[in-house]
């Protein structure tokens, strides 16, 4: 059976997909994953998930975030100054970065 493996490098970080292992059950999958995916990369935690439990939808099937104008959802659309509060400025910065990423995919 195939298990997909997700690694978290340090406490508090996100688990991200790093590969898989073939194993008869979850317990063995955890044993194998420690070696295959945790023996060199900095690792704080691993998750294993049976492959068949993972559903997927990708850009061939879905228009993530829509195809028509959704500018109203983005902080960058509003011409008011965010610099008065550090946390609002940070949010706007993150959104702008995300928008750039989305834009470059087109």
């Amino acid at each position, binding site marked *: 059976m195939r298990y997909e493996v997700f690694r978290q490098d340090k406490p*508090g970080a996100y688990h991200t997909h790093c590969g898989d292992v073939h194993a008869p059950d979850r317990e063995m999958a955890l044993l194998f994953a420690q070696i295959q995916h945790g023996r060199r990369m900095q690792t704080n935690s691993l998750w294993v998930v049976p492959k068949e439990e993972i559903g997927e939808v990708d850009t061939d099937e879905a228009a993530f975030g829509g195809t028509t104008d959704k500018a109203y959802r983005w902080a960058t659309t*509003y011409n008011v100054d*965010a610099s*008065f509060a550090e946390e*609002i400025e940070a*949010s706007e910065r993150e959104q702008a970065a995300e928008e750039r990423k989305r834009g470059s995919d087109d």
Partner: protein
Amino acid sequence: MDLATVESRAEPRAFSPKHDLPEEYRTGATRMLQFHANSEIMGAYLEKPFIRQSPSLDRKLAFSAKVQDEIGHGQLLYRAAEALGVKTREQMLDELANGEGKFLNCFHYEMTDWWETPMIAFFVDGAAMKRQATLKNSSWEPYAHAMDKICFEEGFHIKHGEDVLRELATGSKREQKLLQEAFEEWWPRILQFFGPTDDQSTHHDFMAKVGLKTASNDELRQAFLNSYVPKAEKYGLEIPDEPRIHYDEDAGGYVLEEDDLDWEEFFAITKNDYEPGLNQIDTRAAAQEAVEWVRTSLDASDSPAAAAAGGD
């Protein structure tokens, strides 16, 4: 893990669902997250009528998107709460419906007119952002992760709120007058957003020690006033004479005369014992009850798949 160990290890994002955490931590974190999640839902409830009341297509889109985001925040926060293993999401939503679930003071008041919307969408959300930014450092990792996404989205909400505020503040004389009236009505409630001073706050010490609260009520209110009083003034809003606040050069910030605020009302609200709020709880509960049949129907069609998956 015992409490002393938790305290010694209470770094940002230190604890995950994998850890065996003491009862006190789990219930404390659940109470905080449940309050936060409930507040997202009740905030959305309060703002929802303004999707319809928006006076332009773009505003309507923005309001719908904002209410949608708030429900999404509720979804994230209930999940972070659920991961503590104390209550399920369903339990927490049921508690919100039956009046046990607590939520932010500001969302117990009625909001009936468009010109009131910046009071929530700019000031209250702005206050919430002050707190939320500090919660990115919560010791409960799922909480901090939820905050990453929520803070990412909030920039839109607050800038949109300010844009509505600006439009009213630069609108007709009548719009300016209505805006000022709304501000005077909401200002004391907004000041109470952060609750009473820390020495009156019962849970604060414990929550700070275990890394669930990373800033005090006073610090947050101070930071809020520093950012938002100049904004209010910029848009020509007059800060009401009472509750008294003054700028203290030595402290480098605003000082609030807390005794000027109606704490009796505040504590009635915190016990869900305040009429407009109760009405809002009940009407939301009725709406939730009305679609109970759908959840039952989904659960019924869920179970064969769940059984087939053989999860434990």
